[in-house]
């Protein structure tokens, strides 16, 4: 399998092969690329970034604190879409989410008033 590492803007071209039981990654410049290549081969994951509603209107931005399985990204976005948080939310605040076997924290990354 050939792909491009998305862990940093270098975008190294990766070649991932299964040799016996071992998954071999080549083309990477650093260790992060190796880990990414292995995960892509076995079970791709992505960090979700989206918006969360604020009480009384407006939105704040948020992310999952760790990458989730790629095929669950749309579930997570839909779930976050059902939530509403208080207007006093600050960058770094966390909410725990558990949906169908997936446990993750949602972290607030920006609010309409951060920096005002």
């Amino acid at each position, binding site marked *: 399998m050939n*792909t*491009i*590492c*998305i*862990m*940093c*803007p270098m*975008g190294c071209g990766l070649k991932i092969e299964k040799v016996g039981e071992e998954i071999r990654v080549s083309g990477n410049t650093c260790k992060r690329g190796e880990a990414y290549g292995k995960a892509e081969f076995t079970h791709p994951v*992505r*960090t*979700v*970034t*989206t*918006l969360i*509603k604020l009480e009384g209107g*407006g*939105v704040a*931005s948020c*992310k999952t604190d760790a990458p989730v399985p*790629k095929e669950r*990204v*749309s579930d997570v*976005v839909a779930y976050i879409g059902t939530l509403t948080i208080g207007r006093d939310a600050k*960058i770094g605040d966390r909410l725990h989410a558990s949906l169908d076997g997936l446990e993750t924290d949602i972290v607030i*990354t*920006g609010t*309409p*008033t*951060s*920096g*005002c």
Partner: protein
Amino acid sequence: MREYDVVVIGGGPAGMAAAIAACDGGAKTLILERDVRLGGILNQCIHQGFGLHYFKEEMTGPEYADRFRKEVEKRDIDVMLEAMALAIGEDRTVTALSPEYGLVKAKAGAIVLAMGCRERTAGAIALPGTRPAGIYTAGMAQKLCNIDGYLVGKEVVILGSGDIGLIMARRMTTEGAKVKLVLELMPYSSGLKRNIVQCLDDYGIPIKYSHTITRVVGSPRIEGLYYAPVGTDRKPILDNEQFVSCDALLLSVGLIPENDLINGSGVEMSPVTNGAAVDENRMTTLDGVFSCGNVLHVHDLVDNVSQEALIAGSAAARYAKGELKSGECVNVAAKDGVRYALPQRINRGEGKVRLFFRVDNVYKGVRLVVESGSKTLSNRKFQMLAPGEMGSVDIERSDIDGDIVVRLEK
């Protein structure tokens, strides 16, 4: 009249880092920001991918901005929000307008320009067809979506493969819109490879290279558009025109440094970057006026913006104290596939200087050669260089032997 050692115009990542460096260099510093808060474009970039180089951790745009904002707040830096800089006088007096302070005049020992850039619009690229509602620049759509929570359409076509357009393709898809097509005039993307992978490929969004829009239809709202492949002359081949329906068109066709404040001031501008021509301290040809971030040249990585702004801010502080010596300069020119190199001038002296460059096409397995007089300052092999990705090489100033040429060698 207020007096400052350093006045920074613009409070995005460039302005904040410049102000921090100026303050740490002992300068009494003011930031003028026209928005209601610091952070610039980063406030609307809610995706991951910032800070890997600078903070060695991956974060979103608002989080990256917040780190710098806290550093600004820790220091004795004056910040005026909703303060729009209108003019720079010959004696380095900055005039600004603010609802809170009225007409502000600030006399500066040194000025740092950090106004960022704006996006090219439908007018700037002469888009054929009607001008219905539903056409946005990608950045405008990003702001409406991420700050105001408003999705601009349900069936979307994107013209241009700049990073903001790619990021918005993913963003609109996760919010429930269908992104039908990305059209790119050139045979390659102007965005980062990783964004093609994680924003288009991940969601099965097709991109057609060497294609452009031939006509936009619909009134009062966009209903669709015609597109066609282009020949080697980049002119559309109309016989192969196709139609796609859509209710929104996003333009991601480039950024232009926002240099209105210095255009016409006699400062030397680079026709390639559309920013000022600067030396290694990021000083323009106007004494004591520095430039950094996207107003100097368009960056793809905010980490580089911060680095550049620290250089400009600390040099501005030294200039204000009379400690910055400008000596004999050599010129830096770009040729043979290198579109530009920055800084455009370097003072002879000691120490390392990092040269940033962009190439004019996709090149594989090439060498980037930096020559000065009879000396080769750097000769480095790159596996791949692309126009969407800014490269850099370090050179030693003490090796400089005359004007510098940066070029590619097969």
